[in-house]
């Protein structure tokens, strides 16, 4: 385990040196998502996914992309769209 610990410290220190380069790429290309999967657009860019794309086949359609079970949709609660009702 000591060997692995030393290995982890070495890798982390190397990562720090490439961190600057990654930072530049993320910043200059304005990237917002990790490449975790490339099968559905709402799992490729989960943070940008809209309400529509997961149900694009028909309303309430069943998930058919395998990664959709693993990568959840973003939290839409911040949209704060309200419904007002008038009760007579």
């Amino acid at each position, binding site marked *: 385990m000591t060997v692995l610990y030393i290995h982890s410290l070495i890798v982390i220190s190397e990562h720090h040196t490439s961190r600057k380069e990654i930072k530049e790429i993320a910043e200059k290309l*304005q990237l917002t998502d990790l*490449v975790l999967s490339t099968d559905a657009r709402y799992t490729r860019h989960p943070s940008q996914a809209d309400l529509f794309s997961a149900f694009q086949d028909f309303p309430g359609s069943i998930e058919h992309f395998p990664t959709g079970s693993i990568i959840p949709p973003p939290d839409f609660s911040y949209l704060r769209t309200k419904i007002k009702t008038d009760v007579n």
Partner: protein
Amino acid sequence: MSINKHRNILDYTLQSLLRRKFKNTGIILVFTFVIFIVSSIILLSYSLKKEAGLMLKYSPEIIVQRMLAGRHELVSTWIMTTILEIPGVSKVEPRYWGYYYDSGIKANYTIIGIGDSGIENNRLIKGRMPSAREKNVAAIGKGIADARIDIGDSLNLQNSEGKWMGFKIVGIFESDSEILTADLIVISEGDFKMLVKMPEDTATDLAVYVANETEIPTVARKIKERFPDSRPILRDEIIRTYDAVFGWRSGLILTLFAGALAAFIILAWDKATGLSAEEKQEIGILKAIGWETSDILEMKFWEGLVISLTSFMCGVILAYLHIFLLGASLFAPALKGWSVIYPDFKLVPLIDFYQIAILIAITVLPYIASTIIPSWKASITDPDTVMRG
């Protein structure tokens, strides 16, 4: 408290474990497997979460999308001026990006159209990035390069009119950046608009930069007020999305963890439900020849500790090798789904020792308890009764 006594008892315990080689090897294998799965999940999810947090903190502070009936629509660039007038906003830039399906290899690419990227001499790019006014050149992610081509080759994409556009590859993102760039095709803004026939004065979405972090929510609220059909996405929300992917409530983690936990509970339950006749008799003999209850329980403690700690260390070491040296290859099919382009996870071994400690607490400690407790009754009973059976 003498060291010799404990050494002798530990010595006996080790001999005892070796006497039941097959049974104990079986237990260690199952236990190690369970720990391996759970630690792999812990290491993978924490490392990815940390990576996401570290990389995505360089994203724009706010992304503004336009919504139509819940669907993401192109945004008009004329609203940029209005947004720029909001106090706190330092810069607004249009983003041009989308997806391209390559039916040849059944892969999805993410295409980005850029202005002057300002990226030069970046060690993670073999070659260079396209410049703003260049036509028909592209930089691609390693996933695409592996699947298709190299620098100097040409990548042909079909535009929305059905015409083929050729792009000479001038740059390839290196594998260390794969987690961000594996499926990217970066071309100039002009080329992008021509490829997708993007209408004038529109963009995919807008990147809004706010100098003061504390003002971000206020700026987002004002954007929403002025443009009710817009959807501002804050950088914090982006990072939180990934917290959810790798958090304990995510599908992947819950499924794997639940399975592993069930296996562990079965193992511990089997131990806890009682001693075999042979084990009971052995305890009786030890009591008869002069071992105290505390000596027997100490022996059982060592037995539990040796097995659980050995399994734990093997499991964690294997998990470390699996995640950080083999790129989580066992979990890859689950994470990959139908993806053709898929990054090689070269994860950084950022380890959450707190979670590892919790794992010890919920596996090693209960296992030791499940070894000691069934022996308790036998060890406090008169040896004569225990040996008679």
